Protein backbone atom coordinates (compact mmCIF):
# COMPACT_ATOMS: atom_id res chain seq x y z
CA UNK A 1 0.00 0.00 0.00
CA UNK A 2 1.33 3.45 -0.95
CA UNK A 3 0.55 6.52 1.17
CA UNK A 4 0.76 10.19 0.27
CA UNK A 5 -0.25 13.19 2.30
CA UNK A 6 -1.43 16.76 2.01
CA UNK A 7 -1.47 19.33 4.76
CA UNK A 8 -4.26 21.78 5.51
CA UNK A 9 -3.01 24.75 7.47
CA UNK A 10 -4.13 28.26 8.38
CA UNK A 11 -4.93 30.45 11.37
CA UNK A 12 -7.09 29.48 14.30
CA UNK A 13 -10.74 28.89 13.33
CA UNK A 14 -10.15 29.18 9.58
CA UNK A 15 -12.13 25.98 8.93
CA UNK A 16 -9.37 23.39 8.55
CA UNK A 17 -11.10 20.63 10.51
CA UNK A 18 -14.36 21.14 8.61
CA UNK A 19 -12.48 21.13 5.30
CA UNK A 20 -11.04 17.68 6.00
CA UNK A 21 -14.32 16.43 7.43
CA UNK A 22 -16.13 17.29 4.17
CA UNK A 23 -14.11 14.82 2.07
CA UNK A 24 -12.68 12.28 4.48
CA UNK A 25 -14.11 8.78 4.18
CA UNK A 26 -13.46 8.14 7.86
CA UNK A 27 -14.68 10.15 10.77
CA UNK A 28 -11.94 12.74 11.14
CA UNK A 29 -9.57 11.80 13.90
CA UNK A 30 -9.46 15.12 15.63
CA UNK A 31 -7.45 16.00 18.68
CA UNK A 32 -9.74 18.79 19.77
CA UNK A 33 -9.70 20.19 23.27
CA UNK A 34 -11.71 22.83 25.07
CA UNK A 35 -10.15 26.25 24.65
CA UNK A 36 -8.73 27.90 27.73
CA UNK A 37 -8.11 31.38 26.32
CA UNK A 38 -11.19 33.55 26.78
CA UNK A 39 -10.62 35.43 23.51
CA UNK A 40 -10.42 32.22 21.54
CA UNK A 41 -13.45 30.78 23.33
CA UNK A 42 -15.42 33.72 22.00
CA UNK A 43 -14.79 32.37 18.47
CA UNK A 44 -15.31 28.66 19.07
CA UNK A 45 -15.47 26.16 21.89
CA UNK A 46 -12.83 23.62 20.92
CA UNK A 47 -9.67 23.64 18.84
CA UNK A 48 -7.12 21.29 17.29
CA UNK A 49 -4.04 20.99 19.45
CA UNK A 50 -2.06 18.34 17.63
CA UNK A 51 -3.63 17.58 14.28
CA UNK A 52 -6.67 16.45 12.36
CA UNK A 53 -6.42 13.36 10.31
CA UNK A 54 -8.61 12.35 7.37
CA UNK A 55 -8.30 9.68 4.71
CA UNK A 56 -9.31 9.15 1.09
CA UNK A 57 -8.70 5.68 -0.34
CA UNK A 58 -7.82 6.00 -4.01
CA UNK A 59 -7.67 2.32 -4.91
CA UNK A 60 -6.34 -0.94 -3.53
CA UNK A 61 -2.84 0.40 -3.70
CA UNK A 62 -2.98 4.10 -2.81
CA UNK A 63 -4.27 6.18 0.10
CA UNK A 64 -4.28 9.96 0.50
CA UNK A 65 -4.03 11.29 4.03
CA UNK A 66 -5.10 14.80 4.93
CA UNK A 67 -3.48 16.38 7.95
CA UNK A 68 -4.85 19.53 9.54
CA UNK A 69 -2.46 21.59 11.62
CA UNK A 70 -3.34 23.39 14.81
CA UNK A 71 -3.88 27.06 14.06
CA UNK A 72 -2.39 28.76 17.08
CA UNK A 73 1.22 29.84 16.89
CA UNK A 74 1.98 28.24 20.23
CA UNK A 75 1.62 24.86 18.53
CA UNK A 76 3.91 25.71 15.63
CA UNK A 77 6.41 23.05 16.70
CA UNK A 78 3.91 20.61 15.13
CA UNK A 79 3.92 22.30 11.74
CA UNK A 80 7.34 21.19 10.57
CA UNK A 81 6.69 17.62 11.70
CA UNK A 82 3.39 17.51 9.82
CA UNK A 83 4.83 19.08 6.68
CA UNK A 84 7.54 16.43 6.30
CA UNK A 85 7.07 14.62 2.99
CA UNK A 86 3.80 16.34 2.01
CA UNK A 87 2.69 16.48 -1.63
CA UNK A 88 1.45 20.02 -1.15
CA UNK A 89 -0.51 22.19 1.23
CA UNK A 90 -3.70 24.21 1.45
CA UNK A 91 -3.70 27.47 3.40
CA UNK A 92 -7.18 28.15 4.75
CA UNK A 93 -8.19 31.73 5.44
CA UNK A 94 -11.37 32.89 7.15
CA UNK A 95 -12.66 35.49 4.66
CA UNK A 96 -14.72 37.17 7.37
CA UNK A 97 -11.86 37.82 9.80
CA UNK A 98 -9.31 40.27 8.38
CA UNK A 99 -7.63 40.27 11.77
CA UNK A 100 -6.25 36.82 10.90
CA UNK A 101 -4.81 37.73 7.48
CA UNK A 102 -1.43 38.78 8.83
CA UNK A 103 -1.12 35.47 10.64
CA UNK A 104 -2.20 33.58 7.52
CA UNK A 105 0.56 35.32 5.59
CA UNK A 106 3.06 34.39 8.25
CA UNK A 107 1.93 30.73 8.28
CA UNK A 108 2.13 30.63 4.49
CA UNK A 109 5.69 31.96 4.49
CA UNK A 110 6.67 29.53 7.24
CA UNK A 111 5.35 26.54 5.28
CA UNK A 112 6.99 27.78 2.10
CA UNK A 113 10.26 27.82 4.00
CA UNK A 114 9.77 24.23 5.25
CA UNK A 115 9.26 22.71 1.83
CA UNK A 116 9.21 23.95 -1.76
CA UNK A 117 5.98 22.07 -2.46
CA UNK A 118 3.06 23.52 -4.37
CA UNK A 119 0.24 25.14 -2.41
CA UNK A 120 -3.09 26.86 -2.89
CA UNK A 121 -5.01 29.31 -0.72
CA UNK A 122 -8.66 28.64 0.13
CA UNK A 123 -10.69 31.73 1.02
CA UNK A 124 -13.18 30.06 3.33
CA UNK A 125 -16.63 31.18 4.52
CA UNK A 126 -17.41 32.88 1.23
CA UNK A 127 -21.10 32.26 1.94
CA UNK A 128 -21.05 34.64 4.93
CA UNK A 129 -22.27 38.19 4.37
CA UNK A 130 -19.17 39.89 5.75
CA UNK A 131 -16.72 37.83 3.69
CA UNK A 132 -14.02 39.75 1.87
CA UNK A 133 -13.81 39.28 -1.87
CA UNK A 134 -11.26 36.74 -3.05
CA UNK A 135 -9.27 39.32 -4.99
CA UNK A 136 -9.10 41.62 -1.94
CA UNK A 137 -7.78 38.71 0.10
CA UNK A 138 -5.19 38.04 -2.61
CA UNK A 139 -3.87 41.59 -2.16
CA UNK A 140 -4.11 41.44 1.62
CA UNK A 141 -2.07 38.23 1.65
CA UNK A 142 0.31 39.67 -0.95
CA UNK A 143 -0.07 36.65 -3.22
CA UNK A 144 1.51 36.97 -6.63
CA UNK A 145 -0.52 36.43 -9.77
CA UNK A 146 0.67 32.83 -10.13
CA UNK A 147 -0.61 31.68 -6.73
CA UNK A 148 -4.04 30.13 -6.82
CA UNK A 149 -6.58 31.53 -4.38
CA UNK A 150 -9.95 29.83 -4.50
CA UNK A 151 -13.33 30.72 -3.04
CA UNK A 152 -14.30 28.06 -0.53
CA UNK A 153 -17.10 26.93 1.74
CA UNK A 154 -15.53 24.19 3.82
CA UNK A 155 -18.89 22.62 4.63
CA UNK A 156 -19.54 22.12 0.93
CA UNK A 157 -17.88 19.02 -0.52
CA UNK A 158 -17.89 20.46 -4.05
CA UNK A 159 -15.79 23.47 -2.97
CA UNK A 160 -13.37 21.28 -1.03
CA UNK A 161 -12.94 18.97 -4.02
CA UNK A 162 -12.18 21.95 -6.25
CA UNK A 163 -9.49 23.19 -3.86
CA UNK A 164 -7.85 19.75 -3.67
CA UNK A 165 -8.02 19.30 -7.43
CA UNK A 166 -6.41 22.69 -8.05
CA UNK A 167 -3.61 21.73 -5.72
CA UNK A 168 -3.11 18.46 -7.61
CA UNK A 169 -3.09 20.31 -10.95
CA UNK A 170 -0.40 22.62 -9.52
CA UNK A 171 1.68 19.59 -8.54
CA UNK A 172 1.33 18.17 -12.05
CA UNK A 173 2.34 21.52 -13.58
CA UNK A 174 5.35 21.70 -11.30
CA UNK A 175 6.42 18.18 -12.28
CA UNK A 176 6.14 19.23 -15.91
CA UNK A 177 8.44 22.21 -15.44
CA UNK A 178 11.02 20.10 -13.60
CA UNK A 179 11.31 17.57 -16.37
Amino acid at each position, binding site marked *: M*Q*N*VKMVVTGPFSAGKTQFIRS*VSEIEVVSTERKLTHAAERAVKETTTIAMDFGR*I*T*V*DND*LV*LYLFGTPGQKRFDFMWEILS*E*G*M*LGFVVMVDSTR*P*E*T*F*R*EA*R*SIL*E*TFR*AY*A*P*TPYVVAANKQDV*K*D*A*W*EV*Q*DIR*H*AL*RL*DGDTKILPCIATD*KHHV*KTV*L*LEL*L*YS*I*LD*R*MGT*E*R
Partner: protein
Amino acid sequence: MALRGNLRDFTVTQLLNLINLAQKTGTLILDGPTDQAHISFRNGKLAYARIGQEDGNLASILRESSKLRPDQYRALSTRAGVISDKELGLLLVNAGYVSQEDILFGLQVHFTSIIRRLFTWVEGLFRFEPGIPPPDDRINVKLDLENLIIEGSRQLREMEELQDEIPSLDLALKFTERPMTNLNLSVQEWRVVRFIDPKNSMKRIAGAAKLNDMEMRRIVYGLIQAGLVQLVRPAGAEIPLNPRMFPTQDREEQRGLINRLIGRIQRL
Protein backbone atom coordinates in the same frame (compact mmCIF):
# COMPACT_ATOMS: atom_id res chain seq x y z
CA MET B 1 -19.09 41.89 -0.53
CA ALA B 2 -17.72 43.67 2.46
CA LEU B 3 -14.32 45.21 2.81
CA ARG B 4 -14.56 46.13 6.44
CA GLY B 5 -12.75 45.54 9.69
CA ASN B 6 -10.82 47.14 12.52
CA LEU B 7 -7.71 49.29 12.15
CA ARG B 8 -6.21 47.30 15.01
CA ASP B 9 -5.93 44.36 12.62
CA PHE B 10 -5.55 46.09 9.28
CA THR B 11 -3.66 49.37 9.24
CA VAL B 12 -4.40 52.44 7.13
CA THR B 13 -1.19 51.73 5.20
CA GLN B 14 -2.33 48.20 4.41
CA LEU B 15 -5.71 49.51 3.28
CA LEU B 16 -4.05 52.03 0.97
CA ASN B 17 -1.91 49.21 -0.38
CA LEU B 18 -4.95 47.06 -1.09
CA ILE B 19 -6.83 49.91 -2.77
CA ASN B 20 -3.75 50.75 -4.81
CA LEU B 21 -3.13 47.19 -6.00
CA ALA B 22 -6.78 46.46 -6.71
CA GLN B 23 -7.17 49.87 -8.40
CA LYS B 24 -10.39 50.43 -6.53
CA THR B 25 -12.89 53.25 -6.97
CA GLY B 26 -15.01 54.28 -4.02
CA THR B 27 -14.81 55.79 -0.58
CA LEU B 28 -13.02 54.50 2.49
CA ILE B 29 -14.83 55.51 5.66
CA LEU B 30 -12.82 55.38 8.87
CA ASP B 31 -14.38 55.76 12.31
CA GLY B 32 -11.42 56.81 14.41
CA PRO B 33 -11.05 57.62 18.08
CA THR B 34 -12.60 61.07 17.77
CA ASP B 35 -13.44 61.71 14.14
CA GLN B 36 -14.77 60.12 11.02
CA ALA B 37 -12.74 60.39 7.82
CA HIS B 38 -13.87 59.94 4.22
CA ILE B 39 -11.15 59.15 1.69
CA SER B 40 -12.17 58.74 -1.92
CA PHE B 41 -10.29 56.93 -4.66
CA ARG B 42 -10.59 56.58 -8.39
CA ASN B 43 -8.87 53.60 -10.02
CA GLY B 44 -6.60 53.16 -7.00
CA LYS B 45 -5.50 56.79 -6.86
CA LEU B 46 -6.35 59.28 -4.14
CA ALA B 47 -9.08 61.63 -5.34
CA TYR B 48 -10.39 63.39 -2.25
CA ALA B 49 -10.14 63.38 1.55
CA ARG B 50 -12.15 64.89 4.36
CA ILE B 51 -11.89 64.46 8.12
CA GLY B 52 -14.28 65.22 10.97
CA GLN B 53 -16.25 68.43 10.73
CA GLU B 54 -13.61 70.17 8.64
CA ASP B 55 -15.32 71.50 5.58
CA GLY B 56 -12.20 71.34 3.44
CA ASN B 57 -13.64 73.69 0.81
CA LEU B 58 -11.34 75.12 -1.82
CA ALA B 59 -11.28 78.63 -0.35
CA SER B 60 -10.09 77.43 3.05
CA ILE B 61 -7.49 75.13 1.51
CA LEU B 62 -6.09 77.96 -0.62
CA ARG B 63 -6.07 80.20 2.44
CA GLU B 64 -4.22 77.47 4.35
CA SER B 65 -1.57 77.32 1.63
CA SER B 66 -1.28 81.14 1.55
CA LYS B 67 -2.56 81.36 -1.98
CA LEU B 68 -5.37 83.65 -0.84
CA ARG B 69 -5.08 86.73 1.37
CA PRO B 70 -7.35 86.92 4.44
CA ASP B 71 -9.54 89.59 2.84
CA GLN B 72 -9.93 87.52 -0.34
CA TYR B 73 -10.78 84.51 1.76
CA ARG B 74 -13.41 86.46 3.74
CA ALA B 75 -14.99 87.71 0.54
CA LEU B 76 -15.10 84.24 -0.94
CA SER B 77 -16.43 82.67 2.27
CA THR B 78 -19.59 84.75 2.00
CA ARG B 79 -20.27 83.00 -1.27
CA ALA B 80 -19.62 79.55 0.19
CA GLY B 81 -22.52 77.25 -0.44
CA VAL B 82 -23.62 79.35 -3.39
CA ILE B 83 -21.03 78.14 -5.85
CA SER B 84 -19.26 74.81 -5.94
CA ASP B 85 -15.51 74.36 -5.56
CA LYS B 86 -15.23 73.60 -9.24
CA GLU B 87 -16.96 76.88 -10.16
CA LEU B 88 -14.87 78.78 -7.63
CA GLY B 89 -11.66 77.27 -8.98
CA LEU B 90 -12.59 78.31 -12.49
CA LEU B 91 -13.40 81.84 -11.34
CA LEU B 92 -10.10 82.20 -9.48
CA VAL B 93 -8.06 80.89 -12.39
CA ASN B 94 -9.87 83.11 -14.91
CA ALA B 95 -9.43 86.12 -12.65
CA GLY B 96 -5.71 85.38 -12.42
CA TYR B 97 -5.64 84.97 -8.61
CA VAL B 98 -4.21 81.49 -8.76
CA SER B 99 -3.12 79.01 -11.38
CA GLN B 100 -4.59 75.58 -11.95
CA GLU B 101 -1.31 74.13 -10.64
CA ASP B 102 -1.68 76.16 -7.42
CA ILE B 103 -5.10 74.68 -6.87
CA LEU B 104 -4.07 71.10 -7.53
CA PHE B 105 -0.93 71.43 -5.44
CA GLY B 106 -2.88 72.96 -2.54
CA LEU B 107 -5.44 70.15 -2.66
CA GLN B 108 -2.75 67.46 -2.83
CA VAL B 109 -0.97 68.90 0.20
CA HIS B 110 -4.24 69.12 2.09
CA PHE B 111 -5.36 65.58 1.25
CA THR B 112 -1.98 64.01 2.01
CA SER B 113 -1.86 65.82 5.35
CA ILE B 114 -5.18 64.16 6.21
CA ILE B 115 -3.78 60.75 5.28
CA ARG B 116 -0.73 61.41 7.47
CA ARG B 117 -3.04 62.10 10.39
CA LEU B 118 -4.78 58.80 9.73
CA PHE B 119 -1.48 56.93 10.03
CA THR B 120 -1.66 57.63 13.77
CA TRP B 121 -5.04 55.91 14.06
CA VAL B 122 -4.42 52.44 15.41
CA GLU B 123 -7.94 51.76 16.64
CA GLY B 124 -11.25 52.22 14.90
CA LEU B 125 -13.53 50.69 12.29
CA PHE B 126 -13.15 50.93 8.55
CA ARG B 127 -15.31 50.09 5.59
CA PHE B 128 -14.85 50.60 1.88
CA GLU B 129 -17.92 51.67 -0.08
CA PRO B 130 -17.46 51.04 -3.80
CA GLY B 131 -20.83 52.68 -4.42
CA ILE B 132 -19.74 56.08 -3.10
CA PRO B 133 -17.62 57.83 -5.71
CA PRO B 134 -15.49 60.92 -4.99
CA PRO B 135 -17.78 63.94 -4.44
CA ASP B 136 -18.82 65.56 -7.68
CA ASP B 137 -18.98 69.15 -6.43
CA ARG B 138 -15.40 69.10 -5.12
CA ILE B 139 -12.22 69.20 -7.17
CA ASN B 140 -10.65 65.76 -7.28
CA VAL B 141 -6.96 65.05 -7.60
CA LYS B 142 -5.29 61.96 -9.03
CA LEU B 143 -2.49 61.14 -6.66
CA ASP B 144 -0.43 57.95 -6.75
CA LEU B 145 -0.45 56.18 -3.39
CA GLU B 146 3.00 54.57 -3.43
CA ASN B 147 4.82 57.39 -1.65
CA LEU B 148 2.15 57.63 1.03
CA ILE B 149 2.28 53.88 1.56
CA ILE B 150 6.05 53.91 1.96
CA GLU B 151 5.74 56.82 4.37
CA GLY B 152 3.09 54.99 6.40
CA SER B 153 5.13 51.79 6.44
CA ARG B 154 8.07 53.63 8.00
CA GLN B 155 5.91 54.06 11.08
CA LEU B 156 5.70 50.33 11.69
CA ARG B 157 8.28 50.04 14.38
CA GLU B 158 7.45 46.92 16.32
CA MET B 159 9.95 44.15 15.71
CA GLU B 160 7.32 41.49 16.38
CA GLU B 161 5.02 42.89 13.72
CA LEU B 162 7.87 43.18 11.24
CA GLN B 163 8.91 39.61 11.92
CA ASP B 164 5.36 38.47 11.27
CA GLU B 165 5.33 40.36 8.00
CA ILE B 166 8.72 39.09 6.84
CA PRO B 167 9.52 35.90 8.75
CA SER B 168 12.80 35.14 6.96
CA LEU B 169 15.53 37.24 5.36
CA ASP B 170 16.70 34.23 3.35
CA LEU B 171 14.26 35.04 0.57
CA ALA B 172 15.18 37.41 -2.25
CA LEU B 173 13.31 40.32 -3.81
CA LYS B 174 12.29 41.15 -7.32
CA PHE B 175 10.62 44.19 -8.78
CA THR B 176 6.98 43.88 -9.70
CA GLU B 177 5.64 45.06 -13.03
CA ARG B 178 4.54 48.36 -11.53
CA PRO B 179 6.42 51.39 -12.80
CA MET B 180 8.65 53.17 -10.28
CA THR B 181 8.11 56.86 -10.91
CA ASN B 182 8.47 59.89 -8.67
CA LEU B 183 9.29 57.82 -5.63
CA ASN B 184 10.42 59.60 -2.51
CA LEU B 185 12.81 57.10 -1.01
CA SER B 186 15.23 57.68 1.84
CA VAL B 187 18.97 57.12 1.41
CA GLN B 188 18.68 53.77 3.21
CA GLU B 189 15.80 52.73 1.00
CA TRP B 190 17.74 53.59 -2.16
CA ARG B 191 20.68 51.56 -0.87
CA VAL B 192 18.39 48.54 -0.65
CA VAL B 193 16.70 49.20 -3.99
CA ARG B 194 19.95 49.23 -5.90
CA PHE B 195 20.81 45.71 -4.71
CA ILE B 196 17.41 44.22 -5.52
CA ASP B 197 17.94 41.21 -7.72
CA PRO B 198 16.49 37.70 -7.45
CA LYS B 199 20.08 36.50 -6.97
CA ASN B 200 20.50 38.44 -3.72
CA SER B 201 18.85 37.27 -0.52
CA MET B 202 17.59 39.98 1.81
CA LYS B 203 20.26 38.93 4.27
CA ARG B 204 22.92 39.59 1.66
CA ILE B 205 21.42 42.97 0.75
CA ALA B 206 21.30 43.95 4.42
CA GLY B 207 25.00 43.12 4.70
CA ALA B 208 25.89 45.12 1.61
CA ALA B 209 23.77 48.09 2.66
CA LYS B 210 25.06 47.89 6.25
CA LEU B 211 21.59 47.52 7.77
CA ASN B 212 20.57 45.46 10.75
CA ASP B 213 17.74 42.93 10.44
CA MET B 214 15.09 45.27 11.75
CA GLU B 215 16.09 48.15 9.48
CA MET B 216 16.10 45.77 6.53
CA ARG B 217 12.69 44.35 7.41
CA ARG B 218 11.20 47.82 7.82
CA ILE B 219 12.46 48.97 4.42
CA VAL B 220 11.39 45.81 2.63
CA TYR B 221 7.99 45.98 4.30
CA GLY B 222 7.49 49.49 2.91
CA LEU B 223 8.53 48.47 -0.59
CA ILE B 224 6.26 45.43 -0.51
CA GLN B 225 3.36 47.46 0.81
CA ALA B 226 3.80 49.95 -2.01
CA GLY B 227 3.58 47.04 -4.45
CA LEU B 228 7.07 47.71 -5.80
CA VAL B 229 8.74 44.43 -4.91
CA GLN B 230 7.75 40.89 -4.07
CA LEU B 231 9.40 38.06 -2.18
CA VAL B 232 10.91 35.23 -4.21
CA ARG B 233 13.26 32.36 -3.60
CA PRO B 234 16.81 33.41 -4.46
CA ALA B 235 17.58 32.59 -8.09
CA GLY B 236 19.55 29.41 -8.42
CA ALA B 237 18.12 28.29 -5.10
CA GLU B 238 15.02 26.80 -6.68
CA ILE B 239 14.71 23.57 -4.77
CA PRO B 240 13.29 20.62 -6.67
CA LEU B 241 10.27 18.79 -5.30
CA ASN B 242 11.17 16.64 -2.35
CA PRO B 243 11.51 13.07 -3.67
CA ARG B 244 10.21 11.81 -0.31
CA MET B 245 6.81 13.26 -1.02
CA PHE B 246 6.23 10.33 -3.39
CA PRO B 247 6.36 6.65 -2.47
CA THR B 248 8.13 6.01 -5.79
CA GLN B 249 11.09 7.70 -7.48
CA ASP B 250 9.99 6.90 -11.02
CA ARG B 251 8.75 10.12 -12.67
CA GLU B 252 6.13 8.39 -14.79
CA GLU B 253 4.78 6.52 -11.76
CA GLN B 254 4.70 9.80 -9.82
CA ARG B 255 2.69 11.43 -12.57
CA GLY B 256 0.39 8.40 -12.72
CA LEU B 257 -0.10 8.63 -8.97
CA ILE B 258 -1.19 12.27 -9.16
CA ASN B 259 -3.59 11.44 -12.00
CA ARG B 260 -5.10 8.63 -9.91
CA LEU B 261 -5.60 11.08 -7.05
CA ILE B 262 -7.26 13.55 -9.42
CA GLY B 263 -9.58 10.85 -10.73
CA ARG B 264 -10.54 9.74 -7.25
CA ILE B 265 -11.27 13.22 -5.97
CA GLN B 266 -13.34 14.03 -9.04
CA ARG B 267 -15.47 10.98 -8.24
CA LEU B 268 -15.98 11.86 -4.55
